[in-house]
C-alpha cells in the first residue's frame, strides 16, 4: 500500500473531482460544490505538504510510469493554491452571471488532475495524457458562457489550435519513441549520456524533441506559438482566464523544465536548446511587451503581459544549469501566479455582468469606489513590473541573478529593457484606476462579495509578504511560504535525476569529449 503513497495526492484529488461531479448532479446549490472543491483542494494541499516533508528522494513507481519527487509536490501545492483561489474568484462571479453550476468546479478539478499528472511522471505519454486531460477540461471552461459569442469564439480558437498543438506534440513523442525506444525521460536521459550513444545526434530524435517543444511552447504561449492567448483570455470568463494564466502556464513550464533539464544533458542538444531558447526568449519578451501596450481590453493586455513573462521565464530556463536558476523559475511562477490571480480577481469583479466592461477605460477611477480592488490592482501591477517589496521583484531579481551567473548578461539587459517597456502599460492601469475620474458606465455592484474580498486581501498579503522576503518565518499563508523555502531542494531533486542515472549507468564516466564541457546541472 505504501508503495503507492506518492500517488495519494493525485488519487485524493481525483476522488474530490468525482465527488464534485456527483454533487453537481445531485446537489441543487452549486456553490456548495464550490466550497467542497475548495475544502477538498485544501486537503490535497495538506496531504501534499505532509508527504513533501516526509518523502525521501524521488519515488518511481508503477514501472517508472510515475515519478513523484519534490518538484512534483511543489507544483501540487501551487496548483492547489491556484485552484482554491480560483474557486473563490469563480463563486461570486458565477453567481452574478447566473451560471453557477457544479460542473464548473468539477471540470476545474479534473483539469487539476491533468496538471497533477503532468508533474508526476517522467513518461512522455503519461505527461501527454495529463496535458490533454487538462486541456479538454479547460476548453469547456473557456466556453462556459455558452450563449455569448465572444466566449464561443474563444473556445473555438483554443480548441482547434490546441488540437493542432497536441497532434504536433504527439508526433514528437512518436519520433522520440521511435529513435530512443522509450518515452520515459529518465531512460532517455540515461541513453543520451551513455557512452558511445548516438541518440543525441540522431535526426529523428532531435526533430521529435523539437516537436514536443513546439507543443509545450504552445501551452506556455512562447512566440511564435502564442497567437491564441489574447483571444482566448479575452473570450474566457475572468475566473477561467485567471486559472489559465496561472495554473496552465505553470503546468506548461513544469513540463518544459523537465524536458529542458534532460536536454541539457547532451552537448549538441544543449546547444540547440540554448539557441532556440535564447532567441525565443528575446522574441517572446519583445512581442509580449509591444503588443501589450496597444491593448484596450484588460484581459488581452494581461495575456500579452503573460507572453512577456513567459519570455522572462525562458531566460530563467536558459540559465537552468546554474544553481539557483531553477529556484528562480519556480519562485517566479509562484509570484506570477499570485499576481495574476489578484489582477484577474479584480477584473472579474469590476467587469460587471457578462464582463461587458472589461476594457481599461471602464476601470477608470474604480480605486475610489472599491479601495480594496484598487490596492490589489496596484500591488499586482507593481509586482508585474518587478517593484521591490512585491513577489514579482524577488522573482525578477532571482532570475536576473541566475542569468548573470550563467553569463547571460545580454539577455538580462534585454529583459531590463523589456521591463522598462512594460512599465508603460502596467502603470497605465494604476493611473486609470486612481487618477482618472470615476467611470459612469460601471456596472459592478455597490458592495463587494465576501469571497472576492477574501481573494483580494489574500493576494495583496501574499504578494507583499513574499516580496518582503521573510521566507523563514512561520507561514501565514498556506502553501506560499514553504514554496520558496523548498523550491531549491525540489529543483535539486529534479535535476539530480539524470545524474543519478549516469552514476548508476552501466559504464562509469563519460567517454565522449564534448560532454566534458557540459556543466553539471546543480553544483
Amino acid at each position, binding site marked *: 500500500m505504501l508503495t503507492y503513497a506518492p500517488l495519494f495526492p493525485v488519487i485524493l484529488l481525483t476522488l474530490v473531482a468525482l465527488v464534485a461531479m456527483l454533487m453537481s448532479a445531485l446537489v441543487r446549490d452549486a456553490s456548495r460544490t464550490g466550497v467542497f472543491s475548495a475544502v477538498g483542494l485544501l486537503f490535497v494541499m495538506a496531504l501534499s505538504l505532509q508527504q513533501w516533508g516526509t518523502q525521501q528522494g524521488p519515488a518511481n513507481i508503477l514501472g517508472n510510469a510515475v515519478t513523484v519527487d519534490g518538484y512534483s509536490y511543489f507544483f501540487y501545492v501551487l496548483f492547489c493554491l491556484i485552484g482554491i483561489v480560483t474557486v473563490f474568484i469563480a463563486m461570486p462571479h458565477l453567481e452574478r452571471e447566473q451560471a453557477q453550476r457544479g460542473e464548473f468546479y468539477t471540470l476545474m478539478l479534473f483539469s487539476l488532475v491533468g496538471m497533477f499528472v503532468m508533474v508526476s511522471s517522467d513518461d512522455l505519454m503519461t505527461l501527454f495524457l495529463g496535458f490533454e486531460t487538462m486541456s479538454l477540461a479547460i476548453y469547456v471552461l473557456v466556453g462556459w458562457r455558452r450563449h455569448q459569442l465572444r466566449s464561443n469564439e474563444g473556445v473555438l480558437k483554443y480548441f482547434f489550435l490546441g488540437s493542432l498543438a497536441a497532434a504536433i506534440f504527439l508526433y514528437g513523442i512518436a519520433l522520440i519513441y521511435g529513435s530512443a525506444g522509450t518515452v520515459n525521460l529518465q531512460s532517455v536521459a540515461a541513453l543520451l549520456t551513455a557512452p558511445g550513444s548516438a541518440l543525441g545526434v540522431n535526426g529523428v530524435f532531435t526533430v521529435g524533441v523539437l516537436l514536443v517543444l513546439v507543443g509545450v511552447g504552445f501551452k506556455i504561449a512562447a512566440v511564435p506559438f502564442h497567437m491564441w492567448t489574447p483571444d482566448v483570455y479575452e473570450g474566457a470568463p475572468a475566473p477561467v482566464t485567471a486559472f489559465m494564466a496561472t495554473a496552465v502556464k505553470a503546468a506548461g513550464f513544469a513540463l518544459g523544465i523537465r524536458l529542458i533539464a534532460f536536454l541539457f544533458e547532451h552537448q549538441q542538444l544543449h546547444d540547440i536548446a540554448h539557441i532556440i531558447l535564447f532567441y525565443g526568449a528575446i522574441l517572446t519578451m519583445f512581442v509580449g511587451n509591444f503588443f501589450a501596450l496597444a491593448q484596450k481590453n484588460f484581459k488581452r493586455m494581461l495575456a500579452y503581459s503573460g507572453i512577456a513573462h513567459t519570455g522572462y521565464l525562458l531566460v530563467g530556463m536558459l540559465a537552468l544549469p546554474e544553481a539557483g536558476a531553477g529556484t528562480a523559475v519556480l519562485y517566479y511562477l509562484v509570484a506570477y501566479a499570485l499576481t495574476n490571480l489578484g489582477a484577474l480577481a479584480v477584473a472579474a469583479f469590476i467587469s460587471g455582468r457578462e464582463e461587458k466592461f472589461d476594457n481599461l477605460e471602464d476601470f477608470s477611477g474604480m480605486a*475610489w469606489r472599491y479601495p480594496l480592488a484598487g490596492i490589489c490592482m496596484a500591488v499586482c501591477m*507593481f509586482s508585474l*513590473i*518587478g*517593484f*521591490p*517589496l512585491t513577489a514579482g*521583484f524577488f522573482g*525578477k*531579481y532571482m532570475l*536576473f*541573478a541566475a542569468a*548573470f*551567473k550563467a553569463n547571460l*548578461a545580454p539577455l*538580462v*539587459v534585454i529583459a*531590463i529593457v523589456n*521591463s*522598462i517597456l512594460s*512599465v*508603460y502599460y502596467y*502603470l497605465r492601469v494604476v*493611473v486609470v484606476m*486612481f*487618477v482618472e475620474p470615476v467611470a459612469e458606465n460601471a456596472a459592478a455592484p455597490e458592495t463587494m462579495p465576501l469571497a472576492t474580498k477574501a481573494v483580494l486581501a489574500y493576494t495583496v498579503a501574499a504578494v507583499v509578504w513574499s516580496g518582503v*522576503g*521573510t*521566507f*523563514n518565518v512561520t507561514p501565514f499563508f498556506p502553501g506560499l511560504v514553504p514554496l520558496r523555502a523548498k523550491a*531549491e531542494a525540489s529543483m535539486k531533486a529534479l535535476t539530480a535525476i539524470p545524474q543519478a542515472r549516469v552514476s548508476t549507468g552501466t559504464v562509469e564516466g563519460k567517454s565522449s569529449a564534448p560532454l566534458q564541457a557540459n556543466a553539471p546541472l546543480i553544483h
Partner: protein
Amino acid sequence: MSFFLTLLIAFPLLAGLAVMVFSSPDDGDFPRWGALVAAVVNTCASLGLLSGALAGEHGWLLRSFEEKRAWVEAFGIHYWLRVDGFSTFLILLTTVATSVAVAASWNSVKSRAHIYFGSILVLSGAMIGVLASADLFLFYVFWEIMLLPALFLLGIFGGSLRRDALYKFVIYTMVGSLLMLVGVVFLGAQHLAARGTWDFGFDALYGLPLSPGAASWAFLAFVAAFAIKAALFPFHTWLPTAYSQAPMPVTFLLSAVMAKLGVYGLLRIAMPMFPDAAQTAAPYLAALAVAGVIYAAFAALAQDDAKLLVAYASVSHLGVILLGAFSFSQQAVVGTVFHLIGHAVTTGALFLLVGFMAERRGSTLISDWGGAARVMPVFATFFMLMMLAAVGLPGLSAFVGEFLILFGAFRDYAVLAALAATSIILGAAYMLWWYQRTMFGAVTQPEVARLKDLTLREGALLLPIMLAVIGLGVYPQPVVSAITPASVQYLARFGVEPDKSPTASPKNLEPLRHQSREHAHQEPVTSH
C-alpha cells in the same frame, strides 16, 4: 543593538498606512492631525541623532545606532541600518521637511486627505530608509518604495497637467530604477565571483575587485539612476513638469529631500563602489553637470511661471551639487553634502512661498503679480531673504556649500568650475528679475491689491526655515565638521589623501619689498 533607526523609519511608514486605512475619505481632520503629530514626533525623535553627530570626534560612523539583521540569508541580504556624517543631517532634514510639508498642506487638501497625508508620511519613512541603509539591496528597496507615494501625490493631487507630469516622472525614475537593479545584481554577482558568497552590505562591496569593462557599464547604470533623480542634464525634464504639477508642499518635499537622494546615492554607492570607473568618467559627468547649471539657468531666465522658474533654478543648483559629487577634493565632497542641506532649505522655502502665492492669487504666473511688496511686506521680507539665500549670498545657507563645491572642484576641473561659477551671475539674474517683477513696481492689478499678508501659521512655518537659512550660513562649522570624517573615508576609496591641514607658515611674516625697516619682523597681536 539599537532600534532607534528602525523606529525612525517604521514610525512614519506605519503611521502613514494607519492614516490611510483608518480614516474615512471624507474626514480631513484625522489625517491632518494624525500626520502632523506623527511628523513632529518623528522630527523630535530624529534630533536624537545629533547626540552622536555633534559629540565631536565620533569617528566615521555613529556605531551606537547601527542595526544589522539577516534578511534573506540565501542571498546575503541584510536589514542593515546605520548613519554617518553624510546621512545624519539629511535624515534630520527629511523629518523636519516632512513636518513642514504636512503643516503647509493644512488647508490646501480638500478631498482624499487620508491618502495625501498618509502618502507624505510613507514617503518620509522611505526616504529615511534610503538614507539609513547600509545594505545595497535594502537601499534599493527603500529607493523604490519612495517612488510609490510620490506617484500618488503627483498623480492624484497634482495640477491640471498631472498625467503628463506623472508619466514623465515615472518613466524617468523607473528607467533609472531598473538600470539600478541591473547594477545591484551585477555587484552581488561580482561579490559572489570574487568572494564566493552573496553579499550586499556596503562594506563588502566597497573595494570589490571588478572586471573593468563590465564595471563601467554597471557604474553608468547606477549613475543613470541617481542622475535622473538628481536631474542631471539632459535627464532633467521630468523635474520642472513634476515640480510644477505637484502640490507645492509636495514639491517642497521632493525638492528639499528626494532630489538630494540622487546625489546621496552617487556619493554612497555609484562613486565609491566603482572608484576606477568613477574617476575615468567623472570629468565627462562633471561637464554634463556644468552644462546643466548653465542650461537651466538660461531656461529659468525665460520662464513666466514662478513654479517653473524655481524648478529650473533648482535644476541649475543641482548641477552645481553634482559637479561637487563628481569631484575628488575634500572641499568639494564636504561642500556637496553640505549644499544638499543648504540648498534644500532655500529651494524648499522658495517652493513653499510659491505655494503660498498660488493659494493667494490662484496663479503663479509672473505677469499676474507685480508690486506685491507694498501689499504684503512681511511676505516680501521672507521672500527677499530666501531669494538672496538662493542666489548664494554669503552668510546664508546656500553659500557655504556652493563655495566649497566650486572651490574644491576648481582643483580638479578649473575650466568647468569656472563655467559653473557663472551661475552666481545667472542665478542672480533670474532670481532678482523674478523678484522685481513679482514684488516690486507699482500695484497695477486689483487682485494683487487685495492680497493678504502672511498668516501666523505660514509665518510659523517659515520661521524655522529662516533660522536654518541664517544659522547654516553664519555658523556652518558644526555640520561641516560632522561631515568631514565621512568625507575622508569616502575619498580614501579613491586613494585620495586629504590635503594637509593649513600649514603653520614656514617662514615668519616677511617684510614686503619696499617695506620700511622699522616695521619688519613684528608679529601681529593675536588672541583667540
